[in-house]
């Protein structure tokens, strides 16, 4: 039954840390573009027809994209229960705000076109924009706090508050993720739209890229200075430098690919940038899941947060059966809904 028991507990723990990284990458790439579409939609779409096109570009996809976050939550619960318990109770207020944003997005997509009235649509359009941009921001703020460490007291009890989480560094990370998702979303929209709407989307890509590069430089410098522990593993294993170097090339490749008229390649590249950020994040926090700024001994690490050997082995079997299925029907759905977005009787 538990074929993976032959792997040691430590090896399984590392595999699960990696798998959580995969889930986060999947979530950030997929929900990243639909959050980006939500952020851009009041600006790129001129009239109701264009707004519907923009919303329907993610119509069949957003729901599956959010499942990556839900599954990440479940996997964290199963593989590192102590981290699940502490992370979500520490981010109590911020996380509830994020949940509200996700609910807001879901229902504004669902309800916007169900009733034909201008104030009704305007309400849901506003909600869709606000919840998308706030969700992108909050995800970045959470990542920033995890990166810089949190006020974790003895026995996993968090001592900070929402206000101590809204520190300049996490806010900067939040702005970076927001612009990255907006850029990623604009390339996705460019792929899915045509004619005039596509030209309008095109005008947003370069300015967004420039803002993103500015934030990228700022975040790199401030992480270097403000978060010294993030460099420990880079110094220990110099070959890891390949990740930030490739990341720089990937970022520069986005305008190149757009200029060459290859938006599919640009989308692939912006996805790679997200993966590179996720890898850097992983390297920076390792082996902590939540670093304590009160006393490093209070930190939640892979080793004190993990579930039992048997559970991690069982869950690896579950993942080995489940992930190929997930990937196959995700690809089927993306294939069925490939190509330019068109409105029909079943559209939002």
């Amino acid at each position, binding site marked *: *039954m538990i074929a993976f028991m032959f792997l040691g507990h430590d090896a399984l723990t590392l595999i699960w840390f990696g798998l959580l990284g995969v889930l986060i990458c999947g979530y950030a790439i997929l929900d990243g573009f639909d959050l980006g579409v939500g952020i851009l939609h009041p600006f790129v779409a001129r009239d109701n027809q264009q707004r519907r096109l923009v919303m329907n570009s993610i*119509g*069949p*996809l957003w*729901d*599956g994209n959010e*499942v990556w*976050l*839900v599954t990440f*939550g*479940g996997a*964290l*619960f*199963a593989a590192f*229960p*102590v981290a*699940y*318990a502490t*992370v*979500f*109770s520490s981010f*109590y*207020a911020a996380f*509830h705000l994020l*949940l*509200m944003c*996700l*609910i807001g997005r*879901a*229902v504004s997509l*669902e309800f916007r076109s169900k*009733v034909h009235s201008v104030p009704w649509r305007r309400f849901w359009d506003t909600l869709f924009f606000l919840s998308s941009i706030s969700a992108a921001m909050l995800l970045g703020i959470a990542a920033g706090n995890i990166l810089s460490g949190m006020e974790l007291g003895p*026995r*996993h*009890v968090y001592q900070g508050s929402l206000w101590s989480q809204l520190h300049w560094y996490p806010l900067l990370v939040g702005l970076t993720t927001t612009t990255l998702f907006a850029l990623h979303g604009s390339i996705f929209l460019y*792929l899915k739209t045509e004619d005039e709407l596509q030209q309008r989307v095109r005008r947003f890509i370069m300015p967004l890229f420039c803002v993103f590069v500015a934030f990228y430089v700022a975040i790199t410098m401030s992480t270097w200075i403000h978060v010294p522990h993030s460099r420990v593993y880079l110094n220990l294993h110099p070959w890891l430098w390949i990740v930030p170097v490739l990341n720089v090339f990937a970022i520069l490749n986005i305008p190149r690919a757009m200029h060459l*008229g290859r*938006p*599919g390649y640009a989308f*692939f590249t912006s996805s790679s940038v997200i993966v590179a950020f996720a890898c850097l994040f992983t390297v920076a926090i390792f082996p902590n899941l939540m670093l304590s700024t009160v006393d490093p001994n*209070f930190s939640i690490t892979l080793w*004190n947060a993990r*579930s*039992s050997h*048997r*559970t991690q082995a*069982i*869950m690896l079997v*579950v*993942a080995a059966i*489940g992930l190929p*299925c*997930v990937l196959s029907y995700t690809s089927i*759905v993306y294939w*069925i809904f*490939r*190509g*330019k977005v068109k409105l029909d*009787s*079943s559209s939002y």
Partner: protein
Amino acid sequence: MDVELLSRLQFAGTIMFHYLFPPLSIGLGLQLFLCELAYNRTKNLAWEAAARFWTRVFAVNFGLGVATGIVMEFEFGTNWAAYSRFVGDVFGSALAAEGIFAFFLESGFLAVLVFGWDRVSPKVHLFSTAMVFLGSVFSAVWIVVANSWQQTPAGYHIVWHDVQGVLEPRAEITDFWGMVLNPSSVDRLTHTLVGALVLGAFFVSSVSAYYLLKQRHHDVARRCLSISLPSAVVFTVLAAVSGHDSAQKLVHTQPAKLAAIEAHFQSSDEPSGLYLFGWPDVESEVVHFGVKIPRMLSFLVYSNFNDPVPGLDQIPAKDRPPVWLPFQMFHLMVTLGSALLLLASVSTVFWWRGKLESSHWLLWALVLSPVAAMAANQAGWITAEVGRQPWVVYPSVQDGVEMIGLRTSEGLSESVTAQQVLSSIIMFGVIYSLLFAVWIYVLNAKIQHGPETVDQLRQHKDDQLESFRESISHGGSSLGGSLMEDAT
């Protein structure tokens, strides 16, 4: 108010609101599948019109189920951190499995179900509908397994972990299948699923009966009733049978819960009677205004009229659940279930004899029936969850070794204050009230709009074919380039 009470209120409120949607998704999913199956068999467009209509209703409901479900996935961590550390190995595994096996399946094929009508063949569409239904069933499987494990834990042991010098207990899996197939899993899962299927059958009957009363969409309404009424009979009977099985096992697995739902305070050597209704008073341990059938409880529990059922006095006072709420909710569920069984049977007989459409009182009863079915589903869960207090995880004996349980009061997040929980309750209260209003409004709009007529649908299909032909003759593909294909 204290954190415990507030956190329990928040959990109860958010889960009950969430549970408005999944049972309807499961129940309506089956009805939708049957309509589409009928279309695939007969190629009659009225069936497709029905399936397209139910899909629109389904999509609204499903969207709200997803939105409110994300909250549940994380609420264990936000409000119940100590509980999450205790059960992470077991409960976390079930939640993760639900994500991988159920949610991806549902959300992936939902896209084809809702948006794929004009993109894929009827067979592929039917397959997608089946997958969405299967996904919602898998989701119920994992979450009910996880809940049942807390009620009747099995396949685990307690390991004490040293957390910075203090020992902390955690439940860890020893036998995966023992955990999944714990003593109450199968019964409770069956009863939960059947409850959802009952709701779906009455929901479809309700809307169809409404159309018959309003003299609209006759063709679709009659067809749907021919599926929903017989299935309502089958599922209400199954609900009674599975409910009886579940309750019978309680005397062995959770005697305190059984005593509470029957308000059976004192044990004695005499056979035990069954209260049909009443007003239990825990202080004086009596049931006011109660009507009791002698020996009936003994019969229902042991299938004979003689053996006494143990009372609440067998349980130490600190381990007793509340009595009033589980008693009333259990009786409400049984009453509503019996009424629905009667309604389904009478309606089916009338329909069989061709008298249903002229019996307006019966059609109106069908129109109102989903409210009763929904209330029965909710009441059942209140019975189950309040009846297992004060435990969030029951203590148990595994292989002769006693395992400690976890009290609800021991499961809270240490770092969360009453203030924070109160704020989040207010936030959920406001947003969920708005959502509820919008849901009712949109649902009503969908139902008032109703299905397309067969002619409209035929016209739509001709248009679709025309635009497809046009795009081919223009040399471009209407489906456009793929995502990874480069635009020129």
